[in-house]
């Protein structure tokens, strides 16, 4: 490609600016509203300059056990991410390597698990977990989220495993490794970017999920998303607290993605086989 001209550069930055505004405005609103005193919350035009207050955050952590809800969210999100990655990548490896004419059907069947609208299974899940005595436990959410995440991981990781040249695995086997060690030491490290992508998707999905968390948890296992909405009651909507809670919820997702980012590098298999 030629060196972009100044005009092209300006155009690119202009487009970037538009995109940034579209994406960052809501986040700005959340952040600013979370520290805005309640009386000026809905002032028109919005108040850009004001003395920030920590009141909403204070209430969040003193009047409610918000830390516990965040803890619940973390347990559920990390737990289901871990389970989904383990089972999803093992299944994906099998589907990628086993030559069988029905293998595509299996892969499609796994994907189909994600096709129904979640709302249709809320009640069945409720009945199942009630019978099993798992209502209002993190385990219930971990199970539900894993069933949703595993198909995604299978499909993502299958693509990454397909890219790992089988010659590398054969080399490892001749070098004295069994199939499990070969998977662990050669195939999986080379599919690390896929693992990182999968982890990000699983974590974000589980962290943000609302519907199942609302229906399947009570006071003990409540997650942060549900807890935030509890400030929305029939007689009053406490916007400041909702915004403060929302802002806190934003943070772990960003941290997690940034942590995974160093694995999201491409071209790991470069130079292995000619």
């Amino acid at each position, binding site marked *: 490609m030629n060196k972009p001209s100044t005009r092209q550069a300006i155009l690119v930055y202009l487009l970037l600016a538009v995109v940034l505004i579209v994406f960052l405005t809501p986040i700005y609103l959340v952040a600013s509203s979370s520290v805005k005193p309640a009386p000026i919350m809905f002032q028109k035009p919005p108040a850009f300059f004001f003395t920030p207050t920590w009141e909403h955050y204070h209430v969040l952590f003193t009047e409610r056990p918000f830390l516990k809800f965040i803890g619940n969210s973390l347990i559920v999100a990390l737990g289901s991410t871990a389970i989904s990655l383990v089972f999803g990548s093992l299944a994906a490896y099998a589907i990628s390597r086993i030559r069988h004419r029905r293998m595509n059907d299996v892969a499609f069947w796994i994907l189909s698990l994600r096709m129904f609208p979640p709302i249709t299974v809320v009640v069945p899940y409720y009945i199942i977990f009630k019978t099993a005595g798992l209502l209002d436990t993190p385990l219930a959410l971990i199970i539900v989220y894993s069933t949703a995440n595993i198909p995604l991981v299978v499909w993502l990781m299958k693509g990454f495993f397909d890219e790992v040249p089988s010659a590398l695995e*054969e080399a490892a086997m001749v070098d004295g490794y069994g199939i499990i060690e070969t998977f662990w030491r050669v195939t999986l490290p080379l599919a690390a970017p896929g693992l990182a992508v999968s982890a990000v998707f699983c974590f974000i999905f589980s962290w943000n999920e609302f519907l199942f968390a609302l229906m399947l948890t009570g006071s003990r296992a409540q997650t942060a998303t549900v807890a935030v909405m509890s400030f929305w009651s029939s007689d009053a909507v406490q916007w400041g607290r909702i915004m403060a809670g929302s802002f806190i919820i934003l943070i772990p997702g960003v941290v997690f993605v940034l942590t995974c980012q160093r694995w999201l590098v491409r071209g790991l298999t470069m130079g292995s086989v000619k």
Partner: protein
Amino acid sequence: MSSIALEKVVKRYGAFEIVHGIDLAIDKGEFVVLLGPSGCGKTTTLRMVAGLEDVSDGKLSIGGRVVNDVAPKDRGVAMVFQNYALYPHMTVRQNMEFALRPLKLAPGEVDRRVRETAAILGLDALLARKPSALSGGQRQRVAMGRAMVRTPEVFLFDEPLSNLDAKLRTQVRWEIGKLHKRLGTTILYVTHDQVEAMTLADKIVIMRDGHVEQVGSPEDVYTRPANTFVATFIGSPAMNLVPARLMGGKLQAEAFTLPLPDRFAGRTAEGQAVLIGTRPSDVTLTAADNPGALRATVEVTEYLGDDALLDLRVGLHEMIAQVPAANRPGNDASVHVTFNAAGLHLFDAATGGTLLS
């Protein structure tokens, strides 16, 4: 005891039989080359020895032990892959150490072996690099290094030079030869390059369509080809074949008659259809009044430097002659040629087999 032994080894993919019952015995320390045209089953055979493909039928032993159902990791073989198959997430040093880890050596021994192998292959300066930062020739040497550090019973090579340019190929070929002399390890080496085969091999196994056509030293297969396939496959340009019939103790071809050399006496039958084989270097230009001189027309002359190749037409027969480039005839020249009787081969026209067996 053979180092590697194949007895009636068959490979099938579903209903397709790719390798049809190969018998082969390789002695300890021998350098054996599997040679044949593309798709003849060389790689498949090698991969069966490595354990990367199941043996459909027959018996495969390494070091006297039947290994049909032994996993690759327990066969004591090391393999150099055609595309090198270096682990891209490991440095050169780690690639070599990785191959040593299953041997559970003391750390000092691992380090010593890596250093020693790196020194032999000139990889000292590259140990900290990843494969992506190496040239093709360097990758090739790392692949050999990874196989060598393990000091295996058997080395398997699958066209290790095919990704190198012509000059590097010659150089690495030479290094492989030296390496074999130094280590004395049994080597099974696949190639379709006959120069590699002729220069490296103690024993060449010539394959076609999943069959072994001939096993012998480079000299055997060149000077005593078992059939027309080997005769035309080995040697460049290929051996000329002219159909003829044995009549009254003479070889009667369409356009000429040759006396039957003594060594074929008693090996032919009157009236038998044969193929006369002559290497291009055994077709020589001669004076017209020489007894046995045959009239020929030069269709094309190809200049090679020291030699020239002449595309000749002798009566109805086309053949190639390799002659000194000096005083070579031009295109369309009319010349006279004779065949070197000592270099004459005869094959049965029906079976293609040599009459000298």
